[in-house]
């Protein structure tokens, strides 16, 4: 397919505040849990959520006649309905976890990932014709991989202290090259953040990463105050727990632009308009309490191979 007719662009999400993309009601002790993948149980943000907020950012929500009036909006996001419905050409994938921030005794927090997460990232980047171009190292049992000069290590015993776990570390060159590569993709224009990212980057054994992805998210207890009495509302103010992805979480996904059926509009026009640059945007629920502030950066491969 020529570049005029279809296009794939990777995007990165960097959480500036906690993100609550929920599933409704939970069955466990958390009343409002976040979305998780069924098999890996890792947190993710559904593609439909990302599409929704991008459409809203460009005032192209599927409401009123916003899309009917504007051909590009219609071509990009589609129109629902029984008679004149048309599918949008922009297809957003789910955003998958890349690095989960975990509280660290040294360095404040660690950007944690695992071999399987990185393999999944590598596959995603390949789909978008970007490439990690690095061999993915595997953390040995009970050891975590860090870079030389990591700010996470206690200097005397070379251990790392993540939440309640302390583990031995191993300095790894491959990890350093990977950290450099990911830092360049996530923070292309910010050298200071690239440095901070690399210092805090760590590859955990699979089971340790799984533990943090389940137990290391942000869980807050909430109550409702009766405005008259200034104490807990006895009727509706019950205690509930809500979960969120912590600030500094990094996720990735991609957007694919299908053949555009609207006349005189090319795929490139749609991606150039709606899937470009870096935006600060709000995503998910609980936004009035400051949650869901993210930067969403679209990144197209510079040396895109012609299909």
């Amino acid at each position: 397919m020529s570049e005029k007719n279809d296009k794939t662009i990777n995007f990165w999400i960097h959480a500036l505040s906690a993100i609550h993309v929920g599933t409704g009601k939970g069955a466990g002790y958390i009343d409002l849990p976040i979305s998780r993948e069924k098999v890996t149980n890792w947190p993710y943000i559904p593609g439909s959520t990302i599409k929704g907020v991008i459409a809203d950012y460009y005032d192209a929500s599927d409401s009123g006649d916003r899309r009917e009036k504007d051909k590009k909006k219609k071509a990009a996001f589609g129109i629902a309905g029984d008679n004149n419905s048309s599918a949008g050409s922009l297809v957003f994938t789910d955003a998958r976890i890349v690095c989960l921030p975990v509280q660290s005794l040294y360095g404040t927090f660690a950007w944690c990932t695992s071999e399987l997460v990185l393999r999944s990232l590598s596959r995603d980047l390949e789909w978008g014709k970007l490439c990690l171009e690095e061999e993915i190292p595997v953390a040995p049992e009970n050891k975590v991989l860090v870079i030389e000069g990591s700010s996470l290590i206690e200097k005397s015993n070379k251990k790392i202290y993540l939440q309640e776990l302390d583990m031995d570390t191993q300095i790894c060159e491959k990890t350093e090259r990977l950290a450099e590569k990911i830092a360049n993709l996530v923070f292309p224009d910010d050298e200071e953040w690239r440095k901070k990212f690399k210092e805090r980057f760590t590859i955990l054994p699979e089971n340790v990463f799984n533990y943090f992805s389940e137990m290391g998210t942000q869980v807050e207890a909430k109550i409702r105050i009766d405005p008259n009495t200034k104490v807990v509302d006895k009727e509706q103010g019950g205690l509930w727990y809500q979960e969120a992805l912590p600030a500094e979480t990094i996720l990735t996904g991609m957007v694919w632009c299908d053949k555009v059926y609207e006349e005189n509009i090319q795929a490139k026009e749609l991606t150039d308009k709606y899937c470009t640059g870096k935006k600060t945007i709000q995503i998910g629920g609980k936004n009035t309490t400051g949650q869901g502030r993210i930067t969403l950066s679209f990144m197209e491969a510079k040396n895109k191979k012609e299909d």
Partner: protein
Amino acid sequence: MTKSPKTIKITPRDPLVARDGRPFSEGKRMKSLDWIRPSVVIGSLRTLVGKLNQKGFNKNTIKELKDISITGPFPYVNNKLYFPTPLDMVLKEEGTQNSEGEKSTYTSIHQLKPGKYNEGEGSTLPRYLSPAMLYPKEQFKPLKRPAFCSKNQMTQWLLTKDIKTSELNKLLQYNKKDGSFFNNNNVINFPKKEERIHLKICPESGSAEEGKLFSSIGLDMNIHDNNGDILPLEMLAKLDTDIPQNELFKIISKLNHIHPCGGERRLVKWNICNNLEKIWECPKEIQEAIKREKKLRMVLATPAIFENGWLPGWLTIKEEHETKCIGTIPGTEIEVQLVSVVNERWQPLSGWSYERNKPKPISRMVPAGSVYFFKITNSVSDEDIANMWLQSVCDDTQLKKDGFGLSLWGIW
């Protein structure tokens, strides 16, 4: 026929939405199939090829696209191909106790095969059909079967005449806790289903719109292996065409593209593999066994649609009092007599025709895994046996090309 088939690997990025025909919208829950229909996969692939052709969907293009046939898709995990578990395989949970009193469970396999009524017994089956009986004879509540068997395990099962002499019992270990099976990854279950609740935010109020709540379900295409590691569950299919100068088929030989498959436009990578041709061949030991034996077993690897419900159109009921059902296996000269059938309740198939821009009529399918037992009444050639492996036994030409009724063969 070109006979230059291509093997394609299909890798879903996100959970695959495999819907049935039931409507879903605000307030209604989506229902998901356990496994995607072959027609959905070949439909998406034909659309992709048509788009790559860049000449629009005219009559000739549609004809050439519809001529592209699919064998599959079958699960492909860790370089192993999997087929649906045959319905003549019956699993029983057994228990043992060691000298220290510790209890453990394992799974034994029983088989269904044609038997005879005892004196005083009977059924409403047609007279040309023998009842499928359980061997060894025992009364128990069967365990749920695993969804798919590896090609190796399927080959062993298709060569099994008498379960007592088989080594198959050792192959399965049943995990009672989560219903999964562990046996060196010779079987896998259906992908797990992931339900999502969607709502619509009103841009004016910033809150959820009243009544705009619905759910969708996707198949999470990752599975846990024996060691608890997570592996991608990919799909493998073979593509071919009967039109010698099918220009569109040439596009397939270089396919390495992204295109949606199934509902909700979830993205899938379509990638041609050039080193997996042998995976589609009939195992030698099966070819030899069929030549040697006169009892033939057919297992449906994909659901089938026949002219006469569960009975293929190429089988005819003969003689007075309907005591015989005979026919010739499609694409071969092998003449057979139907002896018995093991199947389950029919499954519905529908879809949307982009060609006619309206829904397709609902068909009733014989489920994948159904087993037909035959007796061969003439001699068979090596070529015939090789040709019938994974060929469609459906009656309609287009259904054959759409991947329905693919057949695996063995003895009984």
